[in-house]
C-alpha cells in the first residue's frame, strides 16, 4: 500500500518520533502527504481530511522539534504537508494525547485540552474535533500548560480550524478552561524521552534522494544547481494543493527549510533579514516587533497552522497576485536576495544578487529567477520614526481569507508635504504591484483632503482589477480609493474609523 506511485518516482525512508518511539517507514514517495501517511499507511485515523487544502483544520497535527534541548511545538495542516518534511521531528495526533488504557472497555484519562472540550460541550458531530484538540494542544504546550490564554488569543490561534456545528463559543470556552484542569498521569509529553529519541535519529543516508532537504545553505544551493528541475518547496502551503487538487506528481523535491543559515531572522542597523526557511509565524513576529501596527494584519494572514508551516520566502517566491505579504513588503521597500552556486576552480562559491521586491515579478506567477537560483533572504528596512505606515486587507471573512484587495502604504511627510511614499497593492493586477502613478500623484504634494481625493482617483485609475468570486472589479476599484481615504483619516489621528482597529474590548464598550 505504501508504494503507490509511478515507477519512475523513487521513494525513501521517513522517520519520526511518535509517543517517544521512532517510527520508520520505507518507500514513501516524495509527494506523499503527512495525512496520507498517518491515515493510510499507519491506520491512524484520528486525523481527518476535511478539505485537502489547509483551510478547514480537520487535519491539524502538532510537530515538535528539539531546539537547544527543548521541544518547540507547532500545529500544522497535515493534508498539504509533504510527509518527508517532518523527517526527524516528533509528530502528535489526537490519539497520542490521552493516557493509555490499562483496562479493556475503561475510558482513558484525557489530556486537559481534550477534557476541556468534553466539559464545555465543544464537540457535536466531532469531525473537526481532533483538529481543534491538536490546535489546543499546541496552545497548551506553548503557554506553560494553557496558562493565561485569553479569548482573543484563542480566537486568533483557532482561526484556522472550522467547525460547522457549535458556533465556536464552547470551543473558545475550552481554550480558556484547559489550563485550570489537572494533567492526568500518562497524558503529558515525556519531553526528555522525546528529545532523546529525536537525537537518536541519525542524519539521513546520502544518495540519490528523491526528497532533498539539505541542512546548509551551500548544500542547498549545490542541490539546486544539480537538480534545477526539482520542485522547490518550503512550507508547502501552496505546493501541497498542487498535489492534492491538481494531482501533480514530483519526481524530486528540494526542501529549503532545513538550511540552518536560512532559519534565522537577522537584525542589522538599517534592515532586518528574514531567511527563506523562517515560517510566517516567526517572520511576522519579527515584522510586528518593528512595526506594532502590523499585529492584526499578521494574525489575519491565513490560519495559524498555515502560518506555522508556510514561510515568508515561499509566499514571496511563489508570487501569487493575492498573496498578502508582497503589498506590505513593497510598501516597506523590501528587497530579496537571490542566491546560486557558482562553480569555481576551487570548487564553488555562493553567488548572490539583490533586487527590489517589485522587480522580482514579470507576470502572473512568473519572475526573473534563474533555474539554479533560490530566493534566500528578504531584507526589510527598519522603520523610520517619521514614517506613517498602514496595511489594509479586504476579504469576505475577517480571518483566514484571501484578500479581495490588499493595500499597504508607507508615507513620510516634511512640513506638511509628502516627502516619501511607497504603496503596495494586491488583488488588483496579475502580480503584486507597486502603485507608482499614485505615488507620483502624492509626492511633493501637500498632505490634505484635496491631494487625497486626487490620489484616490489616481489609485483607482492605476489598476484594472478583474471580477472574480472574491469581489467585482468595480468593488475592488472603489475600495482602493476608499482605503486611501481611510489612510488619510488615520493620519489625521482619527481613531474608531476602522473596524480592525477596534478590538473586541473597545467594541464591547461601544456596543
Amino acid at each position: 500500500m505504501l508504494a503507490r506511485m509511478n515507477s519512475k518516482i523513487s521513494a525513501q525512508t521517513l522517520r519520526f518520533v511518535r509517543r517517544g518511539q521512532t517510527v520508520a517507514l520505507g518507500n514513501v514517495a516524495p509527494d506523499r502527504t503527512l495525512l496520507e501517511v498517518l491515515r493510510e499507511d499507519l491506520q491512524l485515523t484520528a486525523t481527518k481530511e476535511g478539505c485537502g487544502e489547509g483551510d478547514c483544520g480537520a487535519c491539524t497535527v502538532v510537530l515538535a522539534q528539539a531546539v537547544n534541548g527543548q521541544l518547540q511545538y507547532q500545529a500544522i495542516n497535515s493534508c498539504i504537508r509533504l510527509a518527508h518534511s517532518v523527517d526527524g521531528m516528533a509528530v502528535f495526533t489526537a490519539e497520542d494525547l490521552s493516557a493509555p488504557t490499562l483496562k479493556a472497555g475503561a475510558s482513558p484519562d484525557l489530556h486537559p485540552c481534550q477534557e476541556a472540550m468534553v466539559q464545555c460541550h465543544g464537540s457535536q458531530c466531532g469531525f473537526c474535533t481532533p483538529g481543534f484538540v491538536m490546535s489546543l494542544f499546541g496552545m497548551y504546550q506553548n503557554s506553560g500548560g494553557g496558562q493565561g490564554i485569553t479569548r482573543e488569543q484563542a480566537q486568533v490561534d483557532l482561526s484556522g480550524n472550522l467547525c460547522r456545528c457549535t458556533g465556536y463559543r464552547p470551543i473558545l470556552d475550552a481554550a480558556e478552561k484547559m489550563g485550570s484542569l489537572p494533567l492526568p498521569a500518562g497524558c503529558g509529553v515525556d519531553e526528555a524521552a522525546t528529545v532523546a529519541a529525536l537525537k537518536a535519529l541519525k542524519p539521513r543516508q546520502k544518495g540519490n534522494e528523491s526528497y532533498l532537504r539539505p541542512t546548509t545553505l551551500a548544500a542547498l544551493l549545490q542541490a539546486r544547481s544539480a537538480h534545477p528541475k526539482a520542485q522547490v518547496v518550503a512550507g508547502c502551503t501552496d505546493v501541497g494543493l498542487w498535489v492534492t487538487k491538481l494531482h501533480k506528481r514530483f519526481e524530486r523535491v528540494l526542501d529549503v527549510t532545513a538550511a540552518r543559515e536560512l532559519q534565522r531572522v537577522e537584525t542589522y542597523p538599517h534592515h532586518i533579514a528574514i531567511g527563506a526557511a523562517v515560517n510566517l509565524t516567526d517572520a511576522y513576529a519579527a515584522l510586528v516587533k518593528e512595526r506594532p501596527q502590523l499585529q492584526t494584519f499578521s494574525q489575519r494572514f491565513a490560519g495559524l497552522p498555515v502560518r506555522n508551516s508556510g514561510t515568508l520566502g515561499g509566499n514571496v517566491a511563489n508570487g501569487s497576485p493575492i498573496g498578502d505579504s508582497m503589498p506590505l513588503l513593497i510598501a516597506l521597500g523590501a528587497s530579496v536576495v537571490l542566491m546560486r552556486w557558482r562553480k569555481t576552480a576551487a570548487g564553488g562559491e555562493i553567488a548572490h544578487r539583490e533586487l527590489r521586491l517589485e522587480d522580482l515579478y514579470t507576470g502572473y506567477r512568473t519572475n526573473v529567477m534563474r533555474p539554479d537560483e533560490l530566493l534566500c533572504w528578504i531584507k526589510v528596512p527598519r522603520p523610520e520614526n517619521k514614517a506613517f505606515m498602514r496595511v489594509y486587507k479586504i476579504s469576505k471573512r475577517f480571518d483566514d481569507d484571501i484578500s479581495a484587495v490588499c493595500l499597504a502604504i508607507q508615507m513620510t511627510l516634511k512640513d506638511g508635504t509628502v516627502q516619501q511614499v511607497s504603496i503596495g497593492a494586491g488583488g488588483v493586477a496579475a502580480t503584486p504591484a507597486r502603485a507608482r502613478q499614485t505615488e507620483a500623484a502624492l509626492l511633493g504634494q501637500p498632505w490634505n483632503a484635496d491631494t487625497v481625493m486626487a490620489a484616490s482617483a489616481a489609485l483607482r485609475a492605476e489598476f484594472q482589477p478583474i471580477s472574480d468570486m472574491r469581489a467585482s472589479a468595480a468593488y475592488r476599484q472603489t475600495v482602493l480609493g476608499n482605503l486611501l481615504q481611510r489612510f488619510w483619516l488615520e493620519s489625521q489621528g482619527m481613531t474608531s474609523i476602522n473596524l480592525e482597529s477596534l478590538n473586541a474590548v473597545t467594541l464591547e464598550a461601544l456596543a
Partner: protein
Amino acid sequence: MNAPDLKLVSDNTLRAAGQSKFHESARAQVAGAATYIDDIPEVRGTLHAAPVCSPVAHGILRKLDASAALALPGVRAVIDAGDIPGDTTLAAFAHDEPVFALDTVMFTGQVIALVVADDVMTARRAARLVKLEIEELPAVLNVHEAHALESYVLPPVQVCRGDAKAALRRAPHQLEGRFEVGGQEHFYLEGQIAYVLPLEQNQWWVYTSTQHPGEVQHWVSHALGIASNAVTVECRRMGGGFGGKETQAGHLAVWAAIAANQLKCPVKLRLDRDDDFMITGKRHPFAYHYRVGFEDSGLLCGLELEMLANCGFSADLSGPVADRAIFHADNAYFLEDVAVASYRCKTNTQSHTAFRGFGGPQGVIVIERILGDIARTLDLDPLDVRLRNLYGIKERNVTHYQMKVEDNILDPLINTLAITSGYRERREQIAAWNASSPVIKKGLALTPVKFGISFTATLFNQAGALVHVYTDGSVQVNHGGTEMGQGLNTKVAQIVADELGVPFERVLATASDTSKVPNASATAASSGTDLNGRAAQFAARHVRDNLAAFVAGLDGCGAGAVRFEGGQVITEKTTRRWEDVVGAAYANRIQLWSDGFYRTPKIHYDKTTLTGRPFYYFAYGAAVSEVAIDTLTGEYRVLKVDILHDVGHSINPAIDIGQIEGGFIQGMGWLTTEQLVWNGKGYLQTHAPSTYKIPATGDVPAHFKIELWPEANREDNVHGSKAVGEPPFMLAISVYEALRDAVAQAGGQPMQVNAPATAEEVLRALGA
C-alpha cells in the same frame, strides 16, 4: 457565556432528562476514537472510486473515451450508466434524476461515470483523463430566465386568503420590492462518502454517512434491481449533515454499489471536497417580488408575494422545500389578505436540496424584510411594527394555510427579550453614536421566529425503536434516527434511562441500521427527538411494564405501584437492585427487549390546497443583533447578540444551547459571508473553503448570550420538550436586518441589500 450551569451536571438527581449530559461520543471524539465511514478498517480487496463530472452546464453527451484513464496503472474500471443492473433513474420522489448522466448532461458537475482504482489518488487522477465529447446546448442559469421560459421542476403553487389585490388597493401605503437571497453550501466537515461491501447471495452492506438510511437502502436496491431486504445500510454517525445528507448521500451509495456490483469487490467512494461542492445540491437560492399594503401604524393590509426557488436540474426535495417557504412567509405575523405564488424553477445547476430550515428561512426572511422596510417608510421603530403585526391569541390567530396558532408565546417572549437586551435604550444610544461617528455606523434589529414542527408530508411523522436489556442490566437502544452531532443519541439515551430508572451511563445508543428499525424517516425537520425519543420511550416502557408485572407478582402489589429509579426497583415491600430484577426476570422467561412505535397525533394536511394542520406545534424564539459597518469598505462586525429561545422543557440544556448557537452562527454565515458564485457558464467558482467562507472563530460576537424560555411544550411531546434543530437558524435574520438598519442609518439604501450581505453588497447599498 452560555455554558450550562455545571452544578446541574453534578447534581445527584436521579433523572437524566433535564441534565446537561455530555454528548455520548464526546470522549471518543476528542481522542480521535470516534469512527466515521472513512475510518472503518478496510476489507481486503477494497477499491476506491472517483467521479467523472460534466464540465459543461448543458449538452448532449456524444462520447466517453476512457482509454487514457484505463491505461493508468492501478485503474480497474470505468463504470457508467451501461453498468446499472436496475433502473437507470434514481428512486427519488419525482423519479426525474438519472443515476449517471445518460445522453444529456444537465449541470456542471453532474456525474457521468466513476473511475475505480486501487487507491483514491489514482482514481481521481484517472477521472481527469476520461475524455468527454459533449455538444453544448444553451443553459438556463438563473431563476428569472427559467421563470420566463416556464422551466419548472414541479408545477407552480398558489396559496391565497382573502383578497390581496383589493386590500392593496385600499391600503393607505404601498411598497413594492424585489430582492434575492443566495443559496448555501452545507459544508459538513465530513464530506460525502459511501463504502459498499458485497455479501453472499447478492446481498449488500452499505456504510454511508446519511441522514436517511432507509432511503439509501431503497435507492440502492432499486438501482441494483433487487429487493430491499437484500440491502442493509448502517450509519453510526455523520460528521455533520444539516440536510445535506438527507438525499445526497443516496447518490454516492448507489454509485459505489453499481461499481461494487460490477467488480464484485468492496468499493469506497469518498468525494474530494471540491467535487462535493460541484456535485451536491445546496440550500435553494430564492428571488422575490412583493407588493405590500399597510396602514399608518405599520399594520399589514395586503400582501402579494412571488417566490422563485432555484431548484437546479431536478426536483429532489424542492417541492416540500418551496412549500415550507410558503408556510413560513408569515413567520410570526397575521397575514389577512395574502396571495403567495411559488415557482419551482428548473436551472442547469446542482439540484438544490434540504438544508436546515428547509425553505423556512427563505420564507421568514421575506416578511422580516418587508416589516423592516415598512418601519423605515413610516419612520417607526421596526420592533413596534413587528409587535403590531404578531399573531393574536383569541383572534387573528389562523395562518394563511388555515392552521390555528394555539401555542402563541410571541408577545411575552419578544417583550421579555426587548427588556433583557435593553433594545429600546440601545436604539437611542446607537442613534447618538451614529450621529458622532463619521465612518463606522451601527445598526440594531430584533427579529422573532415561529417555526412549524413536523414533516409537512404527514406520513413521515412516524418512528420506531428497539430497547434491549441484557442480563447484566446494561441497556442498548436503537432507533430509526441518525446521529449527525445534534445529540439525538444522547437525548434518546437520557429518555430511556429515565424510563427504566437506570443511570444514563447504563444506556448505549447504537448505530442506525436498516436491519434493526425498518422504514425509518429521515432525521430531518428538527423532529429527531420528538419522533425517535418517543418511540424509544415507548419501547423502554414496554420492557418496564414487563418487569413491573413480574415484580408486582413477587410482592403481591399492583404493577402500577412498582417504581424504577436510581438503578433500583422499588415497591412498598422491597427495594431491589435493577440488575437483580433483570437477572431474575430473565430466569423467569420475561421478555427483556421490546420495540416502540410513535406517530405524531393531530396533524393532517391537504397537499392539493396546502391547507390543514401540517404542524403539531410551533417552536418560537427571538434575537437581537447589533452590528457596526464601515462605510468606506462595507466591512462589518457583529457586535452583540442576545437570544431568547423556546425549546420547551429542555431534555439537555447544553445540547439545546449548542443547537441554538450553532444554528445562529450558521444562519449568520448564510446571510453574510457565504456567497456561492456561479460564473456565466454555470461553473461554481466557490468550490472549496478557500473561496467559500463559513464563519470562523473570529466571527463569534464578543457578546453572545442565549436564554431558554422556561415553559413546557403545550402539546404532549416527549418530556415537554420542543424541537430545536432548525428554528434557531432563522434567528440570524436579525443580523441581516441589523445590517440593513445600519445601511439606513448611514443614509444608504437598505432595500438594495441582497443576501448574502457581503461587504461588497453593503458598500453597494451605501452608494459609496
